[in-house]
């Protein structure tokens, strides 16, 4: 029943994080809608952690290959997402 306890723990974390997310970004000025979206999008590239483990960990040739493609796409998401957000935010200036 080890795995059930783990599942409950992970679900617990999930539920709390969703509520935290709603509280965290409740009031966003519309000026920041695009950067917030692309910044959040970069965070969703966290899946790269799973991709790295699949690509570099133990596995069959096919699972490693699939994992490697996952690393490729996730790293575009991460790198591109953060850079483009930074590029936009640099432009927001108050005179």
């Amino acid at each position: 029943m080890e795995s059930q306890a783990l599942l409950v723990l992970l679900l617990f974390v999930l539920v709390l994080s969703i509520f935290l997310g709603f509280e965290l970004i409740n009031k966003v000025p519309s000026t920041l809608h695009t950067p917030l979206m692309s910044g959040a999008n970069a965070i969703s590239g966290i899946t790269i952690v799973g991709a790295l483990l699949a690509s570099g960990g133990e596995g069959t040739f096919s699972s490693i290959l699939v994992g490697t493609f996952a690393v490729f796409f996730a790293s575009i998401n991460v790198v591109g997402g953060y850079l483009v957000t930074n590029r936009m935010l640099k432009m927001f200036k108050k005179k």
Partner: protein
Amino acid sequence: MIAFFQSSIFVNLAYIFASILFIFGLKMLSSAETAQRGNLVSASGMLIAILVTLAQNEIIAYEYLLIALIGGLIVGVLASSLVKMTSMPELVALFNGFGGIASLLVGVAEFINPSSTTLIQIIAISFTVLIGGITFSGSLVAFGKLSEIISGKPLILFGQRFVLSALLLVALLLVLELIISTGLLNISSQTILFILIGLTLILGVLLTAPIGGADMPVVIALLNSYSGLAASSAGFVINNNVLIVAGALVGASGLILTNIMCKAMNRSLSNVLFGGFGAATASSEGSGQIQGEVKPITAEDAYLILEAANSVLVVPGYGMAVSQAQHVVRELGELLEDNGCEVKYAIHPVAGRMPGHMNVLLAEANVSYDVLAEPDDVNPLMETVDVCIVIGANDVVNPDARENEGSPIYGMPVIEVDRAKTVFILKRSMAAGFAGIDNPLFLKENSRMLFGDAKDSISTLVSEFKS
């Protein structure tokens, strides 16, 4: 010492630290003063998570992953630095799709890896594939529509809803078969997974294709939320909290944005997703009798009115992005200010093709963000505005939203430009807006149409001011 950095306690503490940085980063992203630092905070959280993962002794081979990492790095750097600001919506959509496919592939890799897969993991893999696949193909369709590779018009297939529900049902049955494996289908579980992937990709296309270009802000925000949920779901596959936390934060923020966009259009999410807005044009009849005539104005006459104005409100829409007019708009704004006029910009939340689209373009043109106002701020003071300049916006300034109960957009909060003393409408022709709805604003007593490309018209105004 090295052993400590590879121990699971250190790795997990580092993941917790990364989660904290994501939380602070997102929080800081929601305020203009701290946003840029917030993005850096969140990026350093990501860097920590990646480095710690790479140092783990679970990773035994680095050749492939390094090639993929470097490849992704190069593509990411090039794409983010070369793309023009006006193409930002499609780039964000594309990155979003890549996040979705990455989560899907993580699920697949774990599935075909022969090391023992628990029941919980199989359920998690099914969901990851489902959400990841929909995010990927949906984002690609959104990318296609935004970059105008495919038509932005809503594409309604016969019996769309029926086909969608049927496919979704089949997908869920396949998931069920993966979980309990009755063997009724007499095919291997891998084949089932591949059929499931195919189905999710079709589902993503079917969900996005019927949505028109003007509704894109909602779709992008929603897909953004999905990509977070896919990552969160992948966290259940590999039993990793940092994926669950980060993914859930993104899922929540995407939903908040989606909700803001829906409210700004006074429509429910299901109406946006399944309404096929703009496909049915024959909906406004009866009270929709429009009277009056269109009164064109030349740039020279418009200049004379602007020259005498004390307060000007600029209302940009997608047309400003299309004609790349943001820089000349800023120039005109500065000339007006030098002339002793107060200049403000009113931005509707759904103007453009993604949330905050107009704000990004005006920021690119160096317009200070404190003169960008929201509809609620400008509407009460509209009577005091001498001239409203509407640049390529249509539905977000349509008075029918307040006056005509038969109009499809009745009830949508709009910028009430018709209450200003004079309204200039910059438009290429009299063609209807994206949603295909008539706009009585063009025929109002105080409206003047300035026909032509927005950039050319404003450039003419600018040179009039300079001469």
